């Protein structure tokens, strides 16, 4: 089994570093192949919104940088782990720069899904998504926005299952480990 970890920490973030390490160590110990991307140290440019990856070179962004490796690793994984400081309820800019470049993984064509229009799958198989957000202190509004964002992202990225957990900065490692395990189970990942 394969997993990709997209770590969207914008600065040193204790809770995200703990979560990152737990995921990599626990999954590796269970014979998963884990590909971590520390996005603030990864050369990924911004999505130019030109739809080149849909109509010029379908499935591949026309701009060549580490986003191609991230997208290829993502779609070949069974599990995608998104780590981010919750930023105004959404993802950090570091995680967003990578996710914006993933539209090459879906088709431009429209389809109806649960009463809404979405994009058709490009691939038969997509990874399950587990998202971990950190907050400096509890914020029910930010957390609710984050949970709904991940739910909608998972639907648009055709994830077979998804789960979200929120941890507080400076939360001790053991409660974090329990939350991560719960999120993996909620996403149907056997660990």
């Amino acid at each position: 089994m394969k997993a990709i970890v997209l770590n969207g920490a914008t600065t040193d973030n204790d809770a995200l570093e703990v979560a990152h390490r737990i995921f990599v160590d626990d999954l590796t110990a269970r014979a998963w192949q884990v590909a971590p991307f520390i996005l603030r140290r990864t050369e990924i440019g911004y999505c130019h919104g030109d739809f080149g990856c849909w109509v010029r070179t379908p499935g591949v962004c026309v701009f060549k940088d580490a986003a191609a490796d991230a997208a290829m690793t993502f779609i070949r994984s069974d599990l995608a782990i998104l780590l981010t400081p919750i930023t105004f309820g959404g993802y950090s800019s570091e995680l967003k720069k990578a996710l914006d470049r993933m539209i090459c993984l879906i088709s431009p064509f429209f389809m109806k899904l649960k009463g809404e229009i979405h994009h058709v799958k490009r691939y038969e198989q997509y990874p399950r998504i587990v998202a971990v957000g950190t907050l400096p202190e509890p914020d029910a509004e930010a957390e609710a926005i984050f949970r709904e964002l991940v739910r909608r992202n998972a639907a648009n990225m055709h994830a077979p299952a998804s789960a979200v957990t929120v941890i507080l900065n400076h939360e001790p490692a053991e409660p974090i480990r329990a939350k991560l395990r719960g999120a993996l189970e909620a996403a149907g990942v056997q660990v």
Partner: protein
Amino acid sequence: MSTPRKIAILVGSARKPHSTSESLAEYLASNLSLRGAEPQVFRVAESARDSSLDILTAVDQADALMIVTPLYMDSLPYLLTATLEQIAQRRNATAAGRRGLACLVHCGFPEALHNEIAIAICRQFAKEAGFEWLGGLSLGGGAVIAGKPLAELGGVLRNVRRSLALTADALAAGQPLPDAAVKLMAKPLINRWVYTLIGNFGWKHMARKLGARRKLNDQPYRRTDDNA
């Protein structure tokens, strides 16, 4: 006579030379000018290429900030997110005075509801960065505009133009966006079935012009026995 209100309009699109966000922003700016306000349009994509464009100072000096942006992956684009992070950091550091904040989010899906999370993110940004939330507009079917001036697009855009006129009234007067502006913007531009039919045809047409029609469903990163 009161001082004209300065409205900074931040375009979140990375597209060039002309984006749908820019069409909407320019129409709003011209309506604001007609009402005696002083709009100034900034593009995050230009700011990313030219560090001399000081968006942060302009936001500090404005009475209100209006974000006009496309939806990228269910939320705000990367460049805009990074800009908002900088604005929030600066405002928290300087305890800047209270300003108004409104947004207009548009998407390529025919339904406006896809933009709700992005608008919630703008509202949360307002809360965290000390802005007064003036409201959010949501537009579906943005591909109809395709970067053209709104005035040239005829009756199909009448609700969008009316909404932006009401938005200009409110921003020029320092008021929250009225419900009528929100409702008008969210009205479907054309029938959903027709929109998806034209949209699907449009992708094929564009790919054909670029010699990629037969590759539209390619799976370049597909799993194989070798990489599984």
